[in-house]
């Protein structure tokens, strides 16, 4: 999400002969537009929050989905902060906010003995280090109280254990992270889950004194939580609705994130395809005769990433990892759930470099595709999959009128 944007920014800079500080990740943090609001009551009015595809806080994102979340001190309806540019990510679990945009001093979760619970969030492109803190949050009319959230890059926990920093580069600033925070609303209720309850070995959670941190186990309730299961009623999943996008792209997109599935008149299941997922959140994609059993749908990936050695990869280092075919390719693949339900999905792959240079201001690019290796069984359906669709994500163990999660339906 964060990074093809920079390809575009760099490509555009080259094209029009300017230099920017954003090529290669050195851009300064975007100006925070957070405000502290004073409200006396919080009136649930809706289970729908607006989501947008735009350039994000550093104005260099493509195919990246953002929304706005209100964070409050636990128990307070007055000490609140509304934070925009929160990335919407169905590929992670839990709310994380960058310390640099947070004006509230959220209380840190304490372990028995008085140590603080601090998390090393692992992404494939780096880690985010910071305390697990407690907040009341509101998204549209939905609210969750005493939600464990992560505050990334807190100056109170500046020393990162080597076992955390050894997993990748730091993503502890808005510029590095590509957002003011991330709202992980994927299929799991906690980020680590049962694997961290009995042992600190997975390396997600640390017990930190004033002077040192060591890995610790963390109960399910103390882990960073997907907020959706904590909502009062619309708590079994989400539906993302994004408009159809012309092949060449669009400058920005406006869509909706609906909370709950079959809980309100606006989130009925209807007659869509339901693909149940395995215990890791994966299904199978069959492409070019190969069954790829660790496939996933992910609003947090900025393109469709898959292996097809017959498609020309981009040669420019600014577009490394993306496809650059001479002509736009119309392709299809078959998605099959654990429940053996299948659906054929058509998608397009255009020349990434041409997309970036023809319409340099566009941030929604439906035919952006990227390479992947044939050595694994992964097909990553990123945000373009969501364009023109109504995609439901049902949380593990939660039931709707059509199935029990984890599933995706579209």
């Amino acid at each position, binding site marked *: 999400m964060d990074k093809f944007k920079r390809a575009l920014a760099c490509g555009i800079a080259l094209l029009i002969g300017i230099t920017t500080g954003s090529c290669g990740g050195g851009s300064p943090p975007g100006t925070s537009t957070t405000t502290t609001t004073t409200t006396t009551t919080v009136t649930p009015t809706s289970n729908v929050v607006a989501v947008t595809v735009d350039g994000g806080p550093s104005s260099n994102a493509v195919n990246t989905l953002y929304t706005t979340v209100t964070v409050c001190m636990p128990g307070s309806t007055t000490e609140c902060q509304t934070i925009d540019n929160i990335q919407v990510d169905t590929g992670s679990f839990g709310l994380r906010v960058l310390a640099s945009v947070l004006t509230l001093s959220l209380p840190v979760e304490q372990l028995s003995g008085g140590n603080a619970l601090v998390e090393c969030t692992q992404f494939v492109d780096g880690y985010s280090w910071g305390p697990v803190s407690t907040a009341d949050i509101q998204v549209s009319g939905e609210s969750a109280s005493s939600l464990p959230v992560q505050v990334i890059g807190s100056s109170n926990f500046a020393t990162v254990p*080597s076992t955390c920093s050894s997993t990748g580069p730091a993503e502890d600033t808005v510029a590095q992270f590509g957002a003011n925070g991330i709202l992980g609303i994927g299929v799991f209720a906690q980020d680590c889950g049962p694997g961290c309850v009995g042992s600190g070995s997975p390396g997600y959670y640390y017990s930190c004194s004033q002077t040192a941190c060591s890995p610790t186990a963390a109960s399910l309730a103390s882990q960073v939580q997907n907020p959706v299961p904590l909502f009062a009623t619309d708590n079994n999943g989400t539906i993302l609705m994004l408009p159809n996008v012309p092949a060449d792209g669009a400058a920005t997109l406006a869509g909706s994130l609906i909370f709950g599935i079959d809980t309100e008149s606006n989130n009925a299941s209807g007659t869509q395809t339901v693909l149940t997922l395995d215990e890791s959140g994966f299904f199978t994609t069959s492409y070019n005769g190969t069954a790829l059993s660790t496939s996933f749908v992910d609003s947090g990936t900025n393109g469709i990433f898959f292996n097809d050695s017959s498609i020309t990869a981009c040669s420019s280092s600014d577009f*490394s990892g993306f496809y650059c075919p001479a002509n736009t390719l119309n392709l299809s693949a078959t998605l099959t759930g654990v429940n053996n339900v299948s659906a054929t999905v058509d998608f397009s792959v255009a020349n990434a470099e041409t997309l970036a240079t023809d319409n340099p201001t566009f941030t929604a690019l439906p035919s952006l595709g990227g390479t992947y290796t044939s*050595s694994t069984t992964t097909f990553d359906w990123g945000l373009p999959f969501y364009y023109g669709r109504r995609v439901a994500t049902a949380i593990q163990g939660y039931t709707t009128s059509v199935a029990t999660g984890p599933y995706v339906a579209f």
Partner: protein
Amino acid sequence: MFTPTVIGQKYRHFGALLLVAVLAPHPAFATLGEPETSVASDAAEFKASVKSMEQANYRVHQIQLPSGTVLREFAAPDGIVFAVAWNGPSMPDLRQTLGAYFNAFAAAAKAPHGGHHMLQVQQDQFVMQSSGHMRAFTGRAYLPQALPAGVAPDELH
């Protein structure tokens, strides 16, 4: 064609090896581009089980890490680790696993790529693909110019 042998137990009581491992600054498994000699002592330190499998052109050490993640290291006949691969609930210690190539990975992570769940590095000397989400990561890295004769990149996973 695979001949698994468990070697973790065999080395666990070797005090000298254990001491070296304990003194190491990081959890130390064999490193990309370096000799495979540290695998056994590392396995002892971390009570990780190691299965070693002989292939025609290379040797695979499959290391079950305490985190639940499985790390595989591919060593050429000369003992140099030319590829690593992993899958499981946590990312492995990439600083140790990638060694001198960690910086190339870190640079790519700050350059254009698919996002927090999708990263690739494609260089003449170093190739890496890494994807997945919390609870389920998968990836690999290899040195294209160090592949033993007859080894195809697709074998390395």
